[in-house]
């Protein structure tokens, strides 16, 4: 019996949410007295396996090779299934990010495992069963998913848990996984890949999100937003209105039909705060709203508000932070 954690990577870089999950899984493994096993698939991912050990794993199972150079749904799922067979886990955790989501879902479907997706809290009951907290109905209802059988699987959203401390002195076994891919897996061909211009940091990983909506009036209106985000080391988010207008690409969209974020700080600029947008950001620790309309619903969820024109307030805020932070 063990806890198995899927380490998601893209282009040879581990997704930070993987370490967040591993940190929480370490605490759960200690409680259960069970080994913590990490799994990673990719090409040349040995360093990620070593990082997994440093982040708390006792063992890392690695599916490494050309077959895993690009994400392929069944190939990754079958490697994950091989890891599940090898680790015999009671609990299986994976990041709720594109790619890992599919591999986890296909593996769970193939092996007939109960899966709770998009969880934002994980706990154990007295008998060592997983309790997985997740939002449903677009965040309007929260449930704790309980499992009727083992293993018990969950995918977990970014920033649900803190990053664990890395300890390079930790040792653990790194074991190559032999995976024989089915024809179904081999039949998926990746013909091309075009990197998105979402910047280093996707909105879901950012500690600070500066988001804008209809109020920016056009694509150029994002310039002061981006400047503030860059200064604070944050990411740029957007409301559906701004994305649908074509001012900024879809990966930046926050809300019911976009991404759900939970940064430490969310600065909503020129966003009225439609319920669909609020669904994606009310889990932020501190929300700041800047809007011309003092009655805008966004102020209802904000800790701090400034009533004013974002084109005056946002640059002023950037200047204020430059002065305050000495950047």
């Amino acid at each position, binding site marked *: 019996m063990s806890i198995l954690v899927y380490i998601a990577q893209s282009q040879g870089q581990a997704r930070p949410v993987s370490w967040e999950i591993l940190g929480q899984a370490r605490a759960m493994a200690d409680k259960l007295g069970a080994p913590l096993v990490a799994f990673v698939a990719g090409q040349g991912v040995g360093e990620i396996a070593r990082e997994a050990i440093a982040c708390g794993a006792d063992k890392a199972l690695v599916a490494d090779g050309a077959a895993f150079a690009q994400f392929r749904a069944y190939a990754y799922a079958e490697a994950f299934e091989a890891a599940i067979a090898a680790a015999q886990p009671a609990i299986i955790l994976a990041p709720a990010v594109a790619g890992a989501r599919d591999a986890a879902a296909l593996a769970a479907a193939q092996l007939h495992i109960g899966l709770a*997706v998009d969880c934002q809290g994980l706990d154990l009951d007295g008998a060592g069963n997983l309790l997985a907290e997740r939002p449903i109905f677009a965040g309007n209802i929260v449930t*704790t998913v309980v499992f009727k059988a083992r293993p018990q699987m969950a995918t977990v959203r970014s920033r649900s848990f803190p990053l664990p401390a890395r300890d390079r002195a930790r040792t653990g076994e790194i074991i190559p996984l032999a995976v024989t891919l089915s024809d179904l897996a081999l039949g998926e061909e990746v*013909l091309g890949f075009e990197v998105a211009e979402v910047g280093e940091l996707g909105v879901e990983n950012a500690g600070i999100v500066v988001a804008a909506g209809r109020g920016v009036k056009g694509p150029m209106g994002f310039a002061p937003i981006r400047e503030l985000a860059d200064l*604070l080391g944050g990411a740029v988010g957007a409301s559906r209105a701004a994305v649908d207008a074509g001012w900024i690409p*879809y990966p930046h969209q926050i809300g019911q039909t976009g991404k759900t974020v939970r940064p430490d*700080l969310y600065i909503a600029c020129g966003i009225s705060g439609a319920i669909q947008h609020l669904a994606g950001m009310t889990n932020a620790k501190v929300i700041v709203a800047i809007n011309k309309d003092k009655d805008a619903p966004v102020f209802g969820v904000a800790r*701090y508000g400034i009533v004013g024109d974002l084109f005056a307030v946002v640059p002023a805020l950037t200047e204020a932070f430059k002065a305050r932070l000495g950047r």
Partner: protein
Amino acid sequence: MKFIVCVKLTPDTEQLAEVQPQDVGSDDLGVTMVLNPWDEFAVEEALQLQERFDGTGVAVTVGGAEATEALKRAVAMGIAEAVLLSDPAFAGSDAWGIAHALAQAIKQLGGATLILTGKQSVDGASGLVAPGLAARLGVPFVSQVAKVLDVTAERVTVLRALDEGMQTVRVKTPAVLSVSKEINEPRYANYVGIRKASRMSYPATKAAQLPGLDLKQVGAGATLTEWADLRKPPVRAGKCEFIQGATVAEQARTLAEKLVAEKVI
């Protein structure tokens, strides 16, 4: 070519906030029910594919008699055929159970070139029916499809949106595709479509009419997980503090100071 689109009846997104925890899982959520908004993109894509590649579209749903409303919407948009899978045996199924029932129905329909679904439902929001269906049919699965580039009798080529970029992916048909909202702009139903949909009959296909159906794999008894402790999320406490000041610069300085003190920067 045949394009099957799997749809679900879900609450209107405008009314999701009105759903009460004690009603979740019941037959009546007390809100307006509509075709799952994510499924509209799948229906639209089926229509566009049928125009591009000369095929027919079939909509399939699982649910009680009320689920007909989801099919009606798909038909009103232009889908030619509709299949309602309705049987007390299906009630309370989880995603794997629904996937099993859909897989048997698709087999009975003689298969399809492509099976399309929305990204997820706005209620349960698991997004697991599509991968579950692909696994049960033993066919390829591509999620987050942002564009269908080409379809032949043997293969389909699509763009798959990953967080870090866009992959061009080619898989064998039949395949299950779950589509992203980037893929198209769903059309509105016109009067002719709405009239056609209201005149069409939607007979229920029962569990016994699906030869491959295993009753042990569907219904509440087959679920592997359960939603416990259904509750409203905590309300954000406190009122908004409006930052005042003689000038915008002064307001900005005050706000910056407060945020630094909050230790969020």
